[in-house]
């Protein structure tokens, strides 16, 4: 798999806002610049998943929208969009930047049910199924999840500081908490 959506140091600068790199829906971003902060803003049913190796100062994040790529029809695919493809793609991308597979810290947040009734029923399934699919995909790759904050009915913002590997998550009305 190619890593065309991977943001490398060369082009992170132009897109960065105070060293904060946004990981949009379906995107995959990796960095080896210690000052970079990767952030997924407003995760609802989506999952933000971080892989970080603090000793090598490499971190990456995917913003997973859906559990399964089987329904994908159009030619191009966002690498972070589906749980089954996002995990191998992110692993590949952080390893390419020099991360050590055995030192990876892996954390995730999201998978909420944002709408509680009626029309929200379909959305509920996606959030829950995303969390399940990400876990499956991790175990298929032989990777272990260290921490997770998923489910419930709140939106969350997840970030990781590349240099320290510190991951924080925050919900509406709350402060950022280390995950």
């Amino acid at each position, binding site marked *: 798999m190619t890593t065309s959506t991977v943001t490398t140091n060369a082009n992170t600068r132009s897109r960065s806002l105070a060293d904060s790199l946004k990981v949009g829906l379906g995107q995959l971003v990796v960095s080896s610049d210690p000052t970079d902060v990767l952030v997924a803003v407003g995760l*609802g049913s*989506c999952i933000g998943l971080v892989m970080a190796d603090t000793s090598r100062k490499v971190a990456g994040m995917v913003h997973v929208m859906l559990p399964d790529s089987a329904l994908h*029809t*159009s030619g191009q695919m966002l690498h972070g969009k589906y749980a089954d493809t996002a995990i191998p793609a992110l692993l590949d991308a952080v390893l390419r930047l020099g991360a050590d597979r055995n030192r990876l810290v892996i954390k995730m947040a999201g998978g909420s049910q944002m709408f509680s*009734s009626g*029309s929200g029923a379909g959305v509920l399934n996606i959030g829950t199924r995303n969390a399940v699919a990400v876990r499956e995909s991790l175990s298929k790759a032989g990777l272990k999840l260290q921490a997770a904050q998923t489910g419930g009915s709140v*939106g969350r913002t997840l970030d990781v500081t590349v240099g320290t590997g510190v991951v924080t998550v925050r919900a509406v009305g709350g402060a950022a908490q280390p995950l």
Partner: protein
Amino acid sequence: MSQAHDEAAATSAPLKFDDLSALQLDALREVGNIGAGTAAASLSTMTGQPVAMGVPSVKVVPIEEVPDDVGGGESIVVAVYMQVIGDAPGHIIFILEADTARELCDTLMGGMDPGELGPAGFSEMQISALQEIGNIMTGSYLRALADLTRLHLEPNPPALGIDMAAALISSVVAEVARTVDLALIIETQFEDEQNPSIGYFAFIPEPEALGTVLRGLGLIS
């Protein structure tokens, strides 16, 4: 690659977003105009105040850009989401800025004490009022859409969410993004004398429903 969609393809070949003609885009814009116009009239009746509408627009947006396009981010909004089923499945979202939503509640409840506020800054009473407003607004939009296209469209009961805009919007976008990486959005802003953007309406048809909608409008045979 395409065998998963053979069934849909048999009834109507999926229409590509970039194939849309200027005439078809105009017609879809008119859908937004009439749908949101009807909803704005309902809102105006409820509040006794005039509600104006911006010019509707039709956009084809890569899914990763939808939350930003809609004004996502972490700002707290009230969103009412209605799933549309029937001939042309799709999604209707009505979004109000938190401040606007509070003012609307005050207007409707005649300055009554709203009671204890929850974590997102709204009380139970305000939430039921907003749910009711959302039901009426999305219902008006859907009826206008069905009348205009002469299609059989039904609502799933609208659901309310109060949270970060991006979290609410992306959860709806995930529904349309199952098979494609682009979303067609028919959107309309609401405005009043002070504020150019007090609310937002969007209809996002499922990709396979686009052809049906255009056929309903008489623009493809």
